[in-house]
């Protein structure tokens, strides 16, 4: 029996502590785990529309790369990211679809009248069920969906100019080129 045997428990412990330590201290927010739906089809939904444009449905979005943004008039970070959505729709010509999460339609309408409307269509998710189908934590949340209707990425919380430049736009451009 070699003396090295005494080191086995210590080595095992250090290995385990290191393994858990990396997960704990890597600064990764567990909330930012990729959505359970990444690379899976977007949940099938049909929602009444906010404006005259009619409703919004998963089937209706197929065939184009689309950015689905959950928002609400009562949500402060939504106001913060709103100029970015306007830029995305107006300057970058990206198709952005809104889902008004647990919001009264008249409040959503006032919100968009005040800040500008970047959306090609807005679905009204009054009871938040479509939100739950998407695995939504809260608003705002933004999903990039490819032509086949698969969710490719999710952004939890307000978009930032950095996220838009470095992650969202390159991804959308890449998907559009395919």
């Amino acid at each position, binding site marked *: *029996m070699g003396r090295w*045997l*005494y080191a*086995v*428990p210590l080595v*095992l*412990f250090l290995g*385990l502590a290191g*393994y858990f330590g990396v997960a704990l201290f890597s600064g990764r927010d*567990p*909330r930012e*785990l990729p*959505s*359970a*739906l990444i690379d899976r089809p977007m*949940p099938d939904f049909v929602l009444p529309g906010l404006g005259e444009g009619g409703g919004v449905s998963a089937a209706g979005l197929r065939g184009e790369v689309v950015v689905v943004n959950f928002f609400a008039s009562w949500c402060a970070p939504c106001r913060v990211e709103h100029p970015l959505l306007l830029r995305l729709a107006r300057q970058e010509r990206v198709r952005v679809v809104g889902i008004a999460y*647990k919001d009264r339609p008249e409040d959503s309408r006032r919100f968009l009248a005040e800040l500008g409307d970047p959306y090609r269509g807005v679905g009204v998710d009054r*009871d*938040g*069920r479509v939100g*739950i*189908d*998407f*695995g*939504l*934590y*809260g608003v705002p949340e933004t999903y990039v969906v490819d032509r086949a209707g698969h969710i490719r990425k999710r952004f939890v919380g307000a978009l930032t100019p950095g996220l838009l430049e470095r992650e969202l736009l390159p991804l959308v451009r890449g998907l559009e080129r395919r």
Partner: protein
Amino acid sequence: MRGLVLFLVLWAGPVLAVQPDERLADPAMEARARTLSRDLRCVVCQNESIDASAAPLARDIRVLLRERLVAGDDDRAAVAFLVARYGDFVLLRPPVRPDTWVLWFGPFAVLLAGGVVTVLALRRRAVGVGPKPLSVEEEVRLAALLRDEEGRR
């Protein structure tokens, strides 16, 4: 009086989150829903179960869970419904799978290895109790050394 108030306040805590209008009429099914929701994470508040959380999303998920049960889902199907949307993250008790074996069994492996080494070490010490007695030659040398020492004094 103050003690009574404190007692009532402390006891009221656990029942605050689940509102009366959420409860199911069938007590057995309601009990199933309560049991299940104690093991489901409220994703907004993270370390609270949806059973204990007052967050609106937790309430929505409690209501949804009850709807699934009423619709005839068994416990496993109702939980799978939520895992499909929120991932394993909603489970407060991580599933036992090959990729979580380290989490579940790692500490026990360390304990076991430590135990085995401790037992081996103790047994080894027990075998060689005390120093070995001197051999005849060693006794002779010792006597000679002691004699020399005496002579030098």
